[in-house]
């Protein structure tokens, strides 16, 4: 390709960072080597966290590739596990080709806080981690320790301590030759890949600013039942507690922040922001905010404006926009400016939720395991940095966040009393918060 524009020092630095950041997902991969019988070697999978997304991830994984077999399930709650097994039966009714791929024995279904350990003691080769985010860092560490390949839903942590743990697990996975793919599915979406590749190639010149949004209405909430302890009520309503979800900026808006980091080929170095809780003030909604607006700054001085909201009856927008010296792009379908481009809306496009599993399985079979651990850990910390800028009201830097003592997830969890932390108050809330002082 002929150079489209002069690459100045700043741009080159970014391109190099981008190359490092994306090296781990250099696709497409060669086709999987066939075994003697013609079919590739069977990969056994297990699900930890049996909600609707986890069950959906099982279907995505089973349909993504040949010779995949589901062998075990684990969840905290018996009712979640039972519903998942019913759903698997429905799945087979809808698609009988899945029947031979679902081989879960009663003895391989586990419930309770230690269900994940029992699943990991089994013979699965690949585990899908789809619990609420609070549990991810610990489950990942145990899975890598047990020698399992991992697919994990985003976000991968709720606090800096969890991010450190995920980065360590990611390095260990690389050393052990284990694959690690995250549920930031835009990284596996053909439209996003095409647009971001063009942005990296200079199609909009130097990226000097960006905007990302996840503005929508409120989500589900489960009214408390009398039999639920504080802890059970919180975990069943995990969206609304920072220790469980990371707040909606981390839980949901991470998708858009991840695209920004991908396009910039870097993570931001600091953030300032505002946020609060205006509409969803009932204690049934825990203590999280319902809106944030944050400005992030990247190493080259480029700024990213981020906005996310979960409020009923308000304007909706989910997406990204990149502004370069020679054009603009929405990051997935359109480039306007010096080198215009658009994704053909009639072009066939693989479902990214399936493609992420196809890429994962192909990488395992090719002996070149994908490792998205660091990338998703950085995007998770980016979202946490935005949350903390709004919670504390301070300018929060990346380094400060990485070195602060913030651990929000209790070490030993059990059903019982658990006070709800106060709603964060800018000017008073501090970074160094611990579940121990709750």
């Amino acid at each position: 390709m002929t150079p489209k524009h002069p690459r100045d020092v700043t741009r080159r630095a970014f391109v190099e960072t981008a190359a490092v950041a994306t090296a781990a997902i250099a696709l497409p991969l060669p086709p999987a080597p066939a075994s003697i019988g013609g079919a590739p070697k069977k990969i056994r999978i297990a699900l930890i966290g049996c909600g609707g997304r986890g069950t959906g991830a099982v279907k995505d994984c089973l349909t993504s590739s040949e010779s995949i077999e589901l062998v075990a399930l684990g969840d905290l709650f018996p009712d979640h596990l039972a519903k998942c097994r019913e759903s698997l039966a429905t799945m087979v009714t809808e698609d009988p080709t899945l029947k031979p791929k679902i081989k879960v024995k009663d003895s391989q279904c586990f419930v309770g806080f230690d269900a994940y350990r029992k699943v990991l003691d089994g013979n699965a080769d690949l585990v899908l981690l789809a619990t609420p985010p609070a549990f991810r860092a610990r489950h990942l560490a145990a899975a890598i320790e047990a020698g399992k390949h991992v697919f994990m839903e985003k976000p991968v942590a709720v606090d800096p301590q969890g991010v450190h743990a995920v980065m360590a697990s990611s390095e260990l996975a690389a050393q052990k030759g284990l694959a690690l793919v995250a549920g930031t599915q835009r990284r596996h979406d053909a439209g996003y890949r095409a647009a971001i590749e063009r942005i990296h190639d200079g199609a909009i010149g130097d990226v000097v600013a960006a905007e990302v949004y996840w503005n929508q209405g409120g989500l589900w909430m489960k009214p408390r039942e009398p039999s639920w302890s504080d802890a059970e009520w919180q975990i069943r309503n995990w969206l609304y507690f920072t220790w469980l979800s990371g707040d909606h900026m981390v839980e949901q808006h991470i998708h858009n922040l991840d695209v920004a980091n991908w396009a910039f080929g870097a993570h931001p170095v600091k953030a300032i922001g505002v946020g609060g809780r205006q509409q969803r003030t009932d204690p049934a909604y825990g203590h999280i905010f319902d809106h944030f607006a944050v400005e992030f700054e990247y190493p080259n001085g480029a700024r990213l404006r981020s906005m996310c909201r979960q409020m009923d009856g308000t304007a909706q927008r989910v997406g990204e926009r990149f502004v370069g010296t020679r054009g603009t792009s929405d990051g997935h379908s359109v480039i306007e400016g010096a080198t215009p481009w658009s994704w053909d809306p009639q072009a066939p496009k693989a479902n990214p939720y399936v493609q992420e599993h196809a890429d994962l399985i192909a990488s395992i079979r090719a002996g070149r395991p994908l490792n998205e651990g660091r990338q998703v850990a950085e995007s998770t910390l980016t979202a946490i940095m935005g949350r903390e800028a709004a919670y504390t009201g301070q300018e929060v830097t990346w380094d400060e966040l990485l070195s602060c003592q913030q651990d929000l997830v209790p070490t030993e969890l059990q059903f019982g009393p658990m006070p709800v932390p106060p709603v964060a108050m800018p000017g008073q809330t501090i970074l160094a918060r611990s579940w121990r002082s709750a």
Partner: protein
Amino acid sequence: MGTNLTLALLLAPWPSPARGQAAGRLVPYRDSIPKTLVTFELVPVPGGTVTLDSPAGPRVVAVPPFWIGKTEVTWDEYDVWVYRLDVAAGAPGGRDSADATSRPSRPYGAPDRGFGHHGYPALAMTYTAARAYCAWLSARTGRHYALPTDAQWTRALEAGLGADTSLSPERRDALAWHAGNAAHKSHAVASKQADALGTHDLLGNVAEWVTVPDGAPVVRGGSWAEPPARVGPRARAAQTPAWNETDPQFPKSRWWLADAPFVGFRFVLLTP
């Protein structure tokens, strides 16, 4: 959130609507969603016969007079149902209570896709959701709103187009948003010319759910996403797995179609 609702509570009840008849003549009719400021209009469709395709060949069906929505159902109307905007926040049994049986799940992301919201057609709802909306609206208003039957929708279209139902490119452009003029998005309802009945967007914009006796529901009329040749009186499509492929949950949503931002609906009323 509060403005619409607060005003609505101050101003309720809405004045009684004209009841669709004047001196024995069927006339346009306006109704409202109780406890809100949201109104909508219906136009009368004279009775007649239509010829429908069927496996046994063309079938002539007699259609008694009815009223049909002047436009596709808008987000202004649909949001009231989805977000319980007709229920005061904090009221006993109010907005925060569980009411999973009669209201849809909260949509994940932006269901309007960024196409536009106020005055734009609600979209990407399942047939189940479109029917449930009609049932809810009927319960709220005390009048029997329903999805059109295939025959009613066809009758409304033919009455609106007049004797000549052929579509020149110019006529199609004047009446319908399709892939050739819509710039990959839905548009505000009634921003294309009305037909002779006074309805807008029966063709194009969003394809519209109708009921089919003894058969799977279909959408009629074609949409902004389809090429001009597939937007017309005979346009008819049944749901395919592609319409909901990227819903990442299992079971997939009963209420929302992750990949069908080209589907909407309007309703009919037999007796105002």
